[in-house]
């Protein structure tokens, strides 16, 4: 029973994903290789050298325009390391079992 539900879920999700690709193909002027909504990126490309004096526009977006995003990312990395250290810490039971 569980397997049947899983198969149905997989088929439905696959149908939606392929339908999305077909929909992007049928758009006029949109889709792969020809994005439509580019005002924000054109602004970044034109102004990042004036604002930040930096050549790599991706770095300018990462550390200046979307800096809070990067701060959250660094915090996620920190939290993941804290989680790994907590999960893999030396507990009393494992100490007795190993040594």
């Amino acid at each position, binding site marked *: 029973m569980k397997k049947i539900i899983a198969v149905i879920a997989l088929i439905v999700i696959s149908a939606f994903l392929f339908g999305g690709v077909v929909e992007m193909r049928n758009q006029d002027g949109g889709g792969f290789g020809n994005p439509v909504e580019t005002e924000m990126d054109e602004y970044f490309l034109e102004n990042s050298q004036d604002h930040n004096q*930096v*050549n790599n526009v991706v770095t300018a977006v990462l550390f200046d325009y979307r*800096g809070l995003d990067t701060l959250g990312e660094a915090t996620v990395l*920190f939290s993941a*390391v804290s989680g790994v250290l907590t999960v893999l810490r030396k507990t009393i039971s494992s100490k007795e079992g190993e040594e």
Partner: protein
Amino acid sequence: MNVKMSVVVRTVADIMVVPIVVFGIYLILHGHLTPGGGFQGGAVVASSTALLIVAHGAMKDNKTDLSNMESTGLTLFFLLAMVGLIMGFSLFYNSLAGTGGIFGGTVSGINPGYINTGGTIPLMNIVVGMEVIAALSLILWMMAKRSGSLEVEK
């Protein structure tokens, strides 16, 4: 438990660590000029830790140092973000760009790339690289130790 690999592997690992670390530091320092940056360069430097762990199977107990390095990186990153706020602009404002001094040069258009440009962005690359090096090395170290493939020297 002896988890050391053969002398050939250990020697080649010892030699290869130097160019790997140099290339990672190059990626971090040139993050504002070429493809790369703190995250990528940090991952490259941390791969040298993986190489050493696999080859030697033993490492000094430097968990505290790595933890301190990671916390320092994250704190300095937030303080660099606060520089813009302190100088009277918004958070993450690049207030050091174009003011002269170190990392204060100006660029415009297509240019060969000058290392002393970018304001706070190269500094942020350096501190984020510090954090990523410490974080990934700590993850690798801890997982290798707890899965039994690492001898810890006191």
